[in-house]
């Protein structure tokens, strides 16, 4: 069941087109990533979903409602974590949680939320004294305090150190397990690859692809690449014969084989049959980073 339906969405700021004919749906219970370079229109798209901005064209339905007309009801049911939004420096963690929970008709137990997010010992700490990671976790807690059906998290881990980023990812997995649908805006490939069930790639306001992270990667031609150094001379044809192999190249003493499917298995067995030992064997797999570059750079050229 779709909880968010976006159709032919358009938004322009003066002469800049921020969002250009973007359509997608988000299913209940999934983590939906919106990925794109800075300034691609990701934030504008989710701000329209949150009802903070009015689109110039297209339709948006969130939980079957119109974010502009039914804003009051949606704000009860959608939690948001905004990019670069803070709290007063002197507001204590528990005060923020208690205050924000009082805004909602059916709030979550904010004490448990603080425990779940590892902030229980920061209960009495002022916002200004929290570390970047702690502020971010508090921000997630505030997005969840209204017991939302959908949580929109914008640039969640920007500015966090790698450890804090990994900790935050664990938390997002936990949010999914609560049955909350998560819309995750990010420009980190690793984050999308690690967390998202499906990813929409947006570039210069346009939707360039929408797929699972693995699906996006498999769109790349040379999916896999194997490098090794044969211990005995090797004829290329024994490799090129294999259906999995696309190409064989030599680079110095190294052989570089590209292909798809069970490439590694096929190459190793054929080498074994010919009594060739592959030294320094390394397998390189294209990742979402490569897929993203391939998807967005060709857009830039046009």
């Amino acid at each position, binding site marked *: 069941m779709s909880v968010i339906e976006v159709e032919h969405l358009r938004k322009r700021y003066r002469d800049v087109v921020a969002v250009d004919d973007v359509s997608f749906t988000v299913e209940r219970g999934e983590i939906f990533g919106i990925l794109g370079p800075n300034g691609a229109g990701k934030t504008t798209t989710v701000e329209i979903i949150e009802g903070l901005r009015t689109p110039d064209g297209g339709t948006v339905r969130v939980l079957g409602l119109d974010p502009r007309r039914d804003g009051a009801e949606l704000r009860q049911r959608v939690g948001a974590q905004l990019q670069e*939004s*803070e709290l007063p420096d002197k507001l204590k963690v528990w005060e923020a949680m208690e205050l924000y929970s009082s805004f909602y008709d059916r709030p979550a137990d904010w004490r448990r939320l603080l425990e779940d997010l590892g902030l229980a010992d920061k209960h009495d700490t002022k916002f200004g004294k929290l570390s970047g990671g702690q502020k971010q976790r508090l921000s997630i807690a505030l997005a969840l305090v209204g017991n939302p059906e959908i949580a929109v998290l914008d640039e969640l881990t920007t500015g966090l150190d790698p450890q804090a980023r990994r900790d935050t990812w664990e938390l997002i997995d936990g949010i999914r397990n609560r049955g909350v649908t998560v819309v995750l805006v990010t420009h980190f490939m690793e984050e999308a690859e690690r967390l998202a069930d499906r990813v929409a790639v947006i570039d210069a306001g346009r939707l360039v692809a929408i797929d699972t992270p693995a699906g996006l990667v498999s769109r790349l031609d040379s999916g896999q690449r194997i490098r090794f150094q044969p211990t005995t001379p090797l004829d290329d044809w024994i490799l090129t014969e294999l259906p999995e192999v696309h190409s064989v190249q030599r680079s110095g003493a190294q052989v570089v084989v590209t292909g798809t499917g069970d490439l590694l298995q096929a190459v190793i067995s054929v080498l074994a049959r010919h009594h060739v030992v592959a030294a320094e064997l390394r397998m390189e797999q294209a990742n979402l980073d490569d897929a993203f570059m391939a998807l967005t750079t060709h857009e830039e050229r046009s």
Partner: protein
Amino acid sequence: MNRLAKLTFTELKLFLRDPTAVFFAVVFPPMLLGILGAIPAFREPSEDLGGQRVIDLYVPIMIGFVLAMLALSVLPTYLATYREKGILRRLSTTPVQPSSLLLAQLAMGVGMALVAVTLVLGIGVVVFDTAMPGQLLGYLVAFVLAAAASFAVGLLIAAVAPSGKAASGIGSILFFPMMFLAGLYFPREVMPEVLRRIGDFTPLGAGVQALQDATTGAWPQPLHLAVLAAFAIGASLTAAKLFRWE
């Protein structure tokens, strides 16, 4: 309503954690009245002042000081900081709209003004035997209009200031000339006619004079009440037009 009360209470707590603001807006005005009253000459009736004592004149001036601090400095600095930090925007994604935070700030400011004014009036009456308002209704009307005019100007500052620092800067730049014209450095009674005339057309000058007149038992002059009402309406309408939530 419950949400607004909760927000107001939170704003009050945050204000009380800001020792500089609490000192200058709430503690300093009654304290300054006490210091001035400690000078014996200021407790003697003076012919230059129409038989009044300096200490009598400083009661409404200190009330003007309280309004200036809370309305021109505290309110716009807080609101502009909240906008700068994205707090107002954050609120617009919750069931509470950011205008509630503005109302909470106003309620907190007016509440603290009442506390400080009570302290000023109380110390004046109890310690220095200053007069209770002779024309009570006129005094209340003058106070309500003076507060409305000051807070409206404060909202206008919050509307145009791009950041919390800018708001605090604009507040201080306005504070000194406005308090000068209200008689902080020397009372309006001993000012040159031209300065007093200019002061008549400022919110604090008109406000202090209206309170002063009502203290002596007269109804405040229509000019001063009209100036206060004009500032209250004009500044708040302009602020409403210019205010941005993000």
